[in-house]
């Protein structure tokens, strides 16, 4: 029984990690290549969810909605890059933080105006509603397995693009040595637009995947973006592999902390206090890990190949 619970929780942690990876992947590339701190990256997560939700009700098909919503989110990302991000790449990080903080407010209120404050629940097709039983005691929602599958497929795809294609080569070169790529006469501006929009679309995909579980809501991206930053700092800015492993570490810590920490705390404090403290302390753990990594190995666990 105990091991069955542990396995279930590990799968839950994996699913959370995969989701974090989808948000962190674009963030780490944008950060690594353009040296651009994009707090508004989480907004694409939200916008993807809302676009997808709207399409689900129009088309009556979740899969079709996702397939259409991804390119639409890509367009939103592209427009945001052209209108705002592009003009401040050259500025310092402080300006990035402030401008994208402003973007968050604009996106959040925009969604409020367009879709209202009440959030949007997204129905799943029947074939995703059930559970998959691995044994009599290990039973996992099929939809969560679907998230894991989609996430792994995207991760694999990204990995192949980054390692095997010409664009990927430019991305890698950009992440480790920006001036070199520019000096080669590559149209760096288009590369930036492409990476930004693709990152937005992947984050949007994550939002689409989570909203049948938690509903789409205003501000959903702001909760995840800070954790996504933790992920890319742990993994190493600019590294897809780092983002993947960082996301899994954070997903596991969070899930296992919520599962087991209260039992640990009950040994040393009252039940009531343990139940209050455990979730907060498990949330704290990831920041402790991040601070430790920054202090000891600021470049992260898997920094992109050094220049």
């Amino acid at each position, binding site marked *: 029984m105990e091991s069955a619970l542990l396995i279930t929780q590990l799968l839950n942690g994996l699913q959370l990690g995969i989701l974090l990876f989808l948000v962190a992947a674009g963030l780490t590339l944008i*950060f690594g290549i353009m040296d651009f*701190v994009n707090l508004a990256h989480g907004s694409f997560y939200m916008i993807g969810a809302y676009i997808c939700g709207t399409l689900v009700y129009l088309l009556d098909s979740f899969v079709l909605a996702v397939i259409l919503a991804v390119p639409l989110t890509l367009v939103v990302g592209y427009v945001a890059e052209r209108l*705002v991000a592009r*003009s*401040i790449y050259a*500025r310092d*990080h*402080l*300006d990035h*933080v*402030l*401008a994208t*903080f*402003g*973007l*968050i*407010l*604009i996106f*959040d*209120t*925009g969604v*409020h*105006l367009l879709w209202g404050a009440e959030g949007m629940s997204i129905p799943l097709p029947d074939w995703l509603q059930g559970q998959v039983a691995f044994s009599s005691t290990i039973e996992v929602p099929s939809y969560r397995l679907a998230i894991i599958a989609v996430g792994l497929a995207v991760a694999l795809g990204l990995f192949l693009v980054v390692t095997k294609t010409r664009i990927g080569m430019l991305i890698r070169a950009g992440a480790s040595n920006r001036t070199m790529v520019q000096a080669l006469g590559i149209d760096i501006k288009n590369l930036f637009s492409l990476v930004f929009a693709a990152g937005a679309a992947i984050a949007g995909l994550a939002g689409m995947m989570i909203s049948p579980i938690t509903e789409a809501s205003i501000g959903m991206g*702001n909760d995840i973006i*800070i954790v996504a*930053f*933790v992920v890319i*700092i742990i993994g190493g*800015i600019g590294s897809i592999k780092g983002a993947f492993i960082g996301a899994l570490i954070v997903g596991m810590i969070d899930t296992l902390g919520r599962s087991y920490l209260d039992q640990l705390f009950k040994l040393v404090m009252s039940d*009531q*206090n343990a139940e*209050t*403290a*455990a*979730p*907060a*302390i498990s*949330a*704290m753990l990831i*920041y*402790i890990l*991040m*601070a430790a990594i*920054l*202090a000891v190995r*600021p470049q992260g666990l898997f920094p992109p190949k050094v220049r």
Partner: protein
Amino acid sequence: MNLSALITPKNLVTAAVLIVLGLMPVLTTVFDQPFYLDIATRIVILAVAAASLNLILGFGGMISFGHAAFVGIGAYAVGIPIYYEYYSGFLHFPLAIAVSALFALVTGAISLRTKGVHFIMITMAFSQMIFFLFLSLEEYGGDDGLLIWSDSELFDGLALDDPSTFYYVCFVSLVGVLLLLHRIVNSRFGRVIRGAKSNEKRMSALGYPTYRYRLVAYVISGALCGYAGALMGNFTNFISPDMMGWGRSGELIFMVVLGGSGSIIGPVYGVLSFLLLEEFIPDVMDLFADGAGVYWHLPFGIILLLVVLFVRGGISGFLNRLTKR
């Protein structure tokens, strides 16, 4: 130096702002608008915090994304003793300064080993730790926050529960902090800090232990923010971990940048404009369409974006350019 050189747009605005702020209790009484004294008090307290942040951000080039934690620590340094019925302000204020200085020393010693965006992130990490720590403290209300049933007790005849008296305590604190920061920035210590911002290697080569200088600046900044927090605790009579979330730290940074990070007085303009915008954008929007005020984040976000894109040096920089013209 002749007198006319002093009459610059910036100095005139500074004088006007300080005079109006100084007269706020009188003005709000005459117009019978006690609520605006509340806004003014909040402005003055946050100005203390923003000006302290500016010491390291504007002059030292250290972008701390976690300064709200110090404000929160300062406020809890009032709230927790009062929870145990220790009412003396001679305990609260020194405690607020000491604990936030200590927190700044420990976190600063680690954070300052990093640079640039890593520094931003590690300061955010430390403030999130404090945020979650207070969230986990069931005894002090956790997420529900802690009600402060009394104000700090200082001298007889200096009752902090009287809004005007309290306002003047805050106002005098602000003026004191601004003068202190002015002295620090223009001292030899301040020149090293500023020099290290633009060229750390050169400062190190000149034999200055820049790490230690920066750490001292970080501790001073944190301690002053803690003091602002103690004032805040007395003002709101309520504290919750929410006060130290990363969003609040971001707001503090924005106030500094909006006002102009290159000047001592800049953050005061920044806080002033920030809070007035926050207060009156919804009202103005409601004038156009009833209920539109809840969407005030939209124009607010646009203003934020425009300031970053087009107004270099914030309000203070703008006034300086007027002077040079």
